[in-house]
């Protein structure tokens, strides 16, 4: 198992190098000169050129990339062109907001989505199942920012139960997390339902029933464990979409998270902010996917056994040998 984890962690390195190159490439393709943006239209050509030189914008692609990467390894993510503050400080401050939002959003959607999916699958073709399918379809099809505005209008303005923006108190987190989670709950519920139905059709479920096990054991012991495996894979993707979605949620609820920081950076052509912000989010995403894959491997013995000492080939040999001994007897 350890071998598998080490292998996956090592695979992270080329991915992250690739991402940093991609981000730098994106910035290079951006029309508009950051130096010109900083100095304003009134500055002369020489002043702009001087600043470009100072910022190292005239260096070659790989020189700039190396400077960025070596900086990152020394904990230096550069300085914002706009605020002149170190990007790292700013990001460390903002990171926790995004993390809370994304983690709560994901946790909510998993905790609600999985039971809803199981419920729908075990009540197949009843009104309960139909209602669950229909509601989740609506939730998936709804723009989350629109849903956010509606709940702000209702719970914030009309009923005045919850603060309409800001996260100074814990109540401020409720609506942002709900807005993040809604579509994802539905997504997971739909996935869970179809996986569950797929598994319930399998032969080994009939085998389990033929052993005289109770319905409860068949569904929760034999079916659920198998059906949850593909859902785990989806959770990685769900985390990714909530990372992307946090961008809008942060804007709507005025949460000072990473998404807002990147948005401001994009608007100002503040490239140290853009490249570091995207790199951080991509790293976070890659780490989550890694964790999800490891959990996946832990749950599924078919994958696990590929990485444990008694690997498949030996297992196969063992079989043949036994088949022979049986034949001989």
């Amino acid at each position, binding site marked *: 198992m350890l071998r598998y984890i080490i292998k996956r962690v090592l695979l992270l390195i080329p991915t992250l190098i690739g991402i940093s190159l991609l981000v730098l490439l994106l910035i290079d393709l951006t029309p508009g000169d950051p130096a010109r943006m900083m100095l304003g239209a009134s500055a002369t050509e020489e002043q702009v050129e001087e600043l470009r030189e100072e910022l190292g914008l005239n260096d070659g692609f790989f020189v700039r990339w190396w400077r960025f990467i070596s900086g990152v390894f020394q904990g230096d993510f550069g300085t914002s062109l706009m605020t002149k503050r170190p990007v790292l400080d700013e990001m460390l401050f903002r990171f926790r907001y995004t993390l809370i939002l994304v983690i709560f959003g994901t946790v909510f959607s998993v905790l609600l989505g999985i039971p809803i999916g199981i419920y729908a699958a075990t009540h197949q073709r009843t009104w309960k199942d139909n209602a669950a399918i229909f509601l989740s379809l609506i939730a998936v099809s709804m723009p989350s920012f629109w849903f956010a505005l509606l709940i702000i209008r209702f719970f914030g303005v009309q009923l005045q139960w919850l603060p309409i923006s800001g996260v100074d108190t814990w109540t401020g987190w409720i609506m942002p997390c709900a807005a993040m989670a809604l579509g994802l709950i539905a997504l997971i519920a739909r996935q869970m339902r179809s996986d569950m139905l797929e598994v319930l059709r399998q*032969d080994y479920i009939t*085998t389990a*029933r033929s052993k005289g096990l109770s319905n409860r054991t068949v569904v929760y012991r034999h079916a659920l*464990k198998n059906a949850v495996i593909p859902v785990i894979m989806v959770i990685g993707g769900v985390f990714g979409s909530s990372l992307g979605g946090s961008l809008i949620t942060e804007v709507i609820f005025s949460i000072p998270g990473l998404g807002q920081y990147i948005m401001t950076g994009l608007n100002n052509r503040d490239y140290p902010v853009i490249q570091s912000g995207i790199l951080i989010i991509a790293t976070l995403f890659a780490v989550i996917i890694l964790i999800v894959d490891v959990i996946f491997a832990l749950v599924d013995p078919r994958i696990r056994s590929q990485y444990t000492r008694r690997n*498949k080939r030996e297992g196969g040999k*063992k079989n043949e040998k036994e088949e022979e001994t049986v034949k001989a007897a």
Partner: protein
Amino acid sequence: MGENLLEIKNLSVEYHTDDAVVYAVNNISFEVKKGESIGLVGETGAGKTTIAKSVLGILPQLQAKIKSGEIYFEGNDLLKLSEKEMQKIRGNKIAMIFQDPMTALNPIETVGFQIAEAIKRHNKIKRQEARERAEDMLEMVGIPGERYRDYPHEFSGGMKQRVVIAMALACNPELLLADEPTTALDVTIQAQVLDMMRNLRQKLNTSVVLITHDFGVVADFCDSVAVTYAGEIVERGSVDRIFNNPKHPYTQGLFESIPRLDSNENRLKPIKGLMPDPTHLPEGCRFAERCPYATEECTAAPPEAYEIEPGHFVKCFKVKEGEK
């Protein structure tokens, strides 16, 4: 061989899909005596598996519907029992072996757990004891007990089928329903598994309903045969009777389509045509369309089962006339 262990009377099962009703089993009756082994023979789609699943009460709940009939097991009608009562019988007194060992085992539980689970369900014993008995079962089907903790994907097809058999026999069932237990296996492994099943049957004195499409397996393993066609039993009798004196044109056709080494004929005689569409069964005899002896009478109304010798039933007008 004494009294009837299992007695099926006039069983009819339908499957309801969105488009149509599939008449899978139509008015089937047969019985299995204690210690007897009966072969259910027929083409794919003749309703053999449905019969077995009806006995065990594990038909797909949403689609399948038992239209009529009774299934007596040790004198009780299984169809009248509650789900709770059925659960006590399933895996305990009646067990089933499934066709495809590749898919019949839960891929993410150890094989040992899956055997011990059945033992624990039906016996009030401690986990450790169940585990020991599961290991004994593995040894009995020729798998070392240490492999208790292995997962299904670590076994070959033949070994998996042994595990499935161990699981089915774990609680010493009175009746074993074996649904094409060897079809998915290589020929060499088939013989091994059959040998093993025969030995176990003699040792445990279990009654067996063996579902197969292979007369060879039946001749090897069974005391009596029931030939199924389009959801009906068309001919039934002892292995000796049916093999030496098949009366129903379908049974005869089946024998003629089996290659024989001792025959001089170069060509096999396949039965012409296909089995009728189970959503639209013909009014008369189901086999009439393909039967070389079919008359007007055959397409008008279905024949009954005629007992031409004690224990030898044939569902055909031809034998009735022959007797006259």
